């Protein structure tokens, strides 16, 4: 019996954290070790299963990805005003699926979460609640990447926000409540914008009529496959003008509405990413949230914005995206340069890394803006790579902080003497961040910029400036921490414990692995672009 084909493997991945949550709730609240172990084991299962999926996915190229569907909510609508209609309903499906775009991100989520679970030794109070919210957060993140229904996606998206609010607000550092509040409001605005876009999408592109014999069904569905199909199908209601229907078609989506939706989606996900003027909330989160949560936030949550941009912005509205490519590129460039410049000026290591995240997300936008396959591959590669690197770096910062009680660069120095292992790791992570060949960061930047050179060579040229700045600020801060004169008070500090060292080693190993064998990731991506973006481009953008 084949587990992958016979079991609802995606649902198991999604349900594991929820089951773990129940286990955690049942465990006695004073047993920190049990709770920690339960969380680690729970997070390892999705990791294992998603790696299994990966092995199978690569073998099975050419066959469509995994999908599991069931109707979750079926709301009958009043049909008294419609004559001859058998049923009129609005369906929310429990639809999960995986393709070359979401698989790497699911693995990234599972990996970073598992490593964050290992690293959660910094939690000093209310362990039970911590791990409960932690696992709920994982379920939400996995749900975001697996969901194939707009509302399932949205609900998962909101779950991560609620869980993060509690995780930041209770277990964060001194200004945690402010940070949690700011997180909630900014992300609330982002998801509100998304919700508006989703609801309009479902009311236009989500509408379809099923007819078989005398049975006439009018259906609103948020299923992604239905939406994508309707958007590309010239005979779908969404694409028929009122005149073509001989009067009224309330489901038609005009040009103006298409543009509105595209912009709404870009803004909604852009706040999450974050794109330049909307970034202030994430700086606070990076400073105030507890280390393992920052790992997840920087490693995975920011990627949800990027994923949404591709999945909903680019895939559903390729024409608009193509027309906006230059805008995206400029935004990306601003992110890249602004982030790098400010990072260079920061005195706090956490702030350096936070701005570095903004800068690296700029590269993602540049790859996206290239609007060719290689650029998109680079963009997604950059997501995964930055997820791993920033998780590693924030883990290290958290571990350093526990020993030095500060992350102020002027106060740190010479830590390589007392903590050689962690300092080495910091150096390796820094090199990966600045894009040293052989590490994953390099591939992401290379592919993104390569793609951009094809379409907007001038902008790509400017982007190189950002790469130089990146090298400057990374080396400046990493070297300041590890080398130079050491403050005497740090002489007695102990190097990493095993629970800290394991996630560091694993993350670095994956970074090196992807750096040496980028095809591990690009192959799955290639497969998805073949099937997804090309037909859309061919039919909608005219080839």
């Amino acid at each position, binding site marked *: 019996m084949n587990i992958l084909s016979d079991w609802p493997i995606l649902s198991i991945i999604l349900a594991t954290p929820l089951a773990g949550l129940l286990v955690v709730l049942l465990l006695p609240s004073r047993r920190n070790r049990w709770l920690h172990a339960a969380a680690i084991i729970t997070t390892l299962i999705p990791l294992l299963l998603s790696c299994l999926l990966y092995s199978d996915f690569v073998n099975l190229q050419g066959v469509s990805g995994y999908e599991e569907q069931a109707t*979750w909510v079926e709301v009958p609508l*009043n049909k008294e*005003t*419609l004559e001859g209609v058998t049923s009129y309903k609005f369906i929310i499906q429990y639809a999960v699926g995986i393709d070359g775009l979401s698989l790497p991100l699911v693995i990234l989520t599972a990996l970073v979460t598992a490593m964050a679970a290992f690293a959660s030794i910094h939690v000093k109070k209310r362990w039970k609640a911590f791990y409960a919210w932690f696992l709920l957060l994982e379920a939400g993140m996995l749900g975001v990447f697996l969901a194939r229904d707009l509302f399932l996606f949205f609900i998962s998206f*909101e779950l991560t926000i609620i869980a993060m*609010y509690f995780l930041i607000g209770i277990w964060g550092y001194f200004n945690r409540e402010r940070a*949690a*509040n700011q997180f909630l409001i900014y992300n609330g605005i982002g998801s509100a914008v998304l919700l508006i876009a989703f*609801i309009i999408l479902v009311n236009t592109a989500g509408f379809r009529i099923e007819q078989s014999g005398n049975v006439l069904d009018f259906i609103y569905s948020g299923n992604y496959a239905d939406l994508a199909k309707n958007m590309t199908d010239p005979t779908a209601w969404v694409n028929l003008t009122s005149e073509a229907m001989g009067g009224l078609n*309330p489901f038609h989506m005009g040009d103006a509405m298409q543009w509105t939706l595209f912009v709404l989606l870009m803004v909604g996900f852009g706040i999450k990413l974050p794109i330049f003027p909307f970034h202030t909330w994430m700086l606070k989160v990076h400073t105030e949230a507890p280390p393992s949560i920052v790992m997840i936030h920087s490693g995975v949550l920011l990627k949800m914005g990027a994923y949404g941009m591709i999945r909903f912005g680019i895939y559903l509205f390729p024409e608009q995206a193509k027309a906006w490519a230059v805008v995206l590129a400029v935004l990306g460039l601003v992110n890249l340069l602004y982030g790098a410049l400010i990072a260079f000026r920061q005195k706090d290591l956490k702030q350096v890394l936070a701005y570095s995240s903004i800068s690296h997300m700029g590269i993602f936008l540049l790859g996206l803006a290239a609007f060719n396959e290689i650029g998109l591959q680079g963009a997604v590669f950059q997501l995964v790579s930055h997820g791993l690197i920033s998780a590693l770096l924030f883990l290290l910062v958290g571990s350093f902080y526990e020993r030095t009680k500060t992350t102020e660069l002027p106060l740190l120095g010479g830590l390589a003497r007392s903590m050689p292992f962690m300092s080495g790791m910091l150096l390796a992570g820094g090199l990966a961040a600045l894009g040293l060949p052989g590490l994953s960061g390099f591939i992401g930047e290379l592919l993104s910029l390569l793609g951009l050179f094809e379409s907007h060579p001038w902008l790509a040229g400017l982007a190189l400036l950002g790469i130089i700045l990146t090298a400057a600020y990374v080396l400046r801060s990493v070297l300041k921490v590890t080398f130079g004169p050491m403050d005497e008070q740090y002489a007695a500090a102990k190097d990493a414990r095993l629970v800290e060292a394991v996630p560091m080693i694993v993350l670095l190993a994956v970074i090196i692995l992807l750096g040496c064998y980028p095809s591990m990731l690009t192959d799955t991506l290639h497969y998805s672009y073949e099937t997804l973006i090309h037909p859309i481009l061919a039919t909608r953008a005219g080839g």
Partner: protein
Amino acid sequence: MYEGVSFLPLTWPDMLYMAPELFLAAVFLLLVVADLLLPQKVSRLSIGWMTVAGLLGAAGFVVYRLIDLQGSGREVGQVIELLGASYVVDQFANLLKLVFLAGTALVALMALGSVKQDKDITDRAELFYLLLPAAIGAMIMASSGNLVTLYIGLELLSITSYVLVALRRRSSKSAEAAFKYVVIGGISSAFILFGMSYLYGLTGSVDLGDFRTALPEVMTSYPALMYAGFFFLIAGFAIKIAAAPFHAWAPDVYQGAPTPVSAFLAVVSKGAALAAVLRILYNSAFFISGGGGGGVKPVGNDVYLALLVLAAAAMLAGTTAALRQRQMKRLLALSGVANAGYLLVPIGLNFTTVHSSNVSEFIFYLIVYLLMTIGAFAVLTVISQAAGHEELKGFSGLYYRAPWTSAAMVVFILSLAGLPVSGGFFAKLFILMGAASAKAYWLVAIMVISSVISYYFYFAIVRQMFMRSSSEEESEIRVSAPTGIVIWLCAGATVALGLMPGLLMDWIQAIFTIRGDLLIGLG
């Protein structure tokens, strides 16, 4: 005899159809007498339990009628109309009566759990048995088929509410609240009567069923009078609903009233007024709007637009005013203002070809609103007992002192804020879907934005509960059994509706039809 008003005797079969109301009235009289005759040493809580039993009994009659109507396989238009169509027993009325009875029963339970702590209440029995005529008033409003019946129901509800608000006799706040409520309520009634008089003047009838034909005939000749009639009517009801800009009384009155009465005003009183607006407009304004067919007829459209503007104003005013509010009852009052806005949206969206599920959206939201609001008020009674006040900071460190109660409160807050997984999320989602399919995108935007603004003050409560430590000694807070039942019924149902909203929508849609259960005298 006035033209258009006829007086018919109440027959025995009629009384059978009015069994829920008559039963409640009988229980009420019984309890009044019992309160007088029972010796002082008998606890007045027993009257409270009998009130709950009476409400559940009445609900049983309603359920019987509801099943009977559904099972009779009746044709569209076969509605039970009593006393010359002045009293209508249809599924719209039955559904709402169930909601009102359930809401009042929960309020009575909450009162059972909290009345002992409130030293300002001198006559506990009154708090219970006065809920009954108020509930009867709400039920009459849901069932009324003409304006006079409606007004009688409204006054029965209102006058009883004035007394209920004033029950904390030793508190000057309560007296102040009751006085304000009497004055404002009087103005509201005056507005409603004034509006009704115009409609009567235009149509020569007070029967809702006659408006359908009479209003379109006179619309072109007297549009100004018609606007005046409808707008006064809406303004009057907007005061009862506490929709901005007619909401200023709500925080004061809720604050002064006993907490269970605040919950009653927030849920049942508001729901009954909304139901009345829904029923009146779809029997009148609908037929002089574009939706009635026969070309564009602007008066009805403007009436509906006015409702939508009112809804938008209520949502924005309620949420922004609540931002700086630290008194919990005032905060919940303002949250009720915002929720009144949401509830007005499905009423204000006219029926269109592609969107006619307004009523099921409305009832679903009303049920969810009932659960989360009564639940939140019930938690508040627990907190105010422990803290001795009703300020936001009373919630501080609740997680340490009552972890389960704070978990339930999180459910209510998520639902109020419209976040998953809760009934509130789907309730808002369905209304948003309706507004979007009616192409009212500006309203979609306002609804979503006001939800986000509301995160700020709802999550301030979460912050107090989970992120602050309690200033007082960390003793566990005890929750009395009736209050516990209310909290957990509400929390459980809110979560259940968040997981399986389809079941309730299915049920409403299965028993409700517009032609048969909302419009009057349409055969």
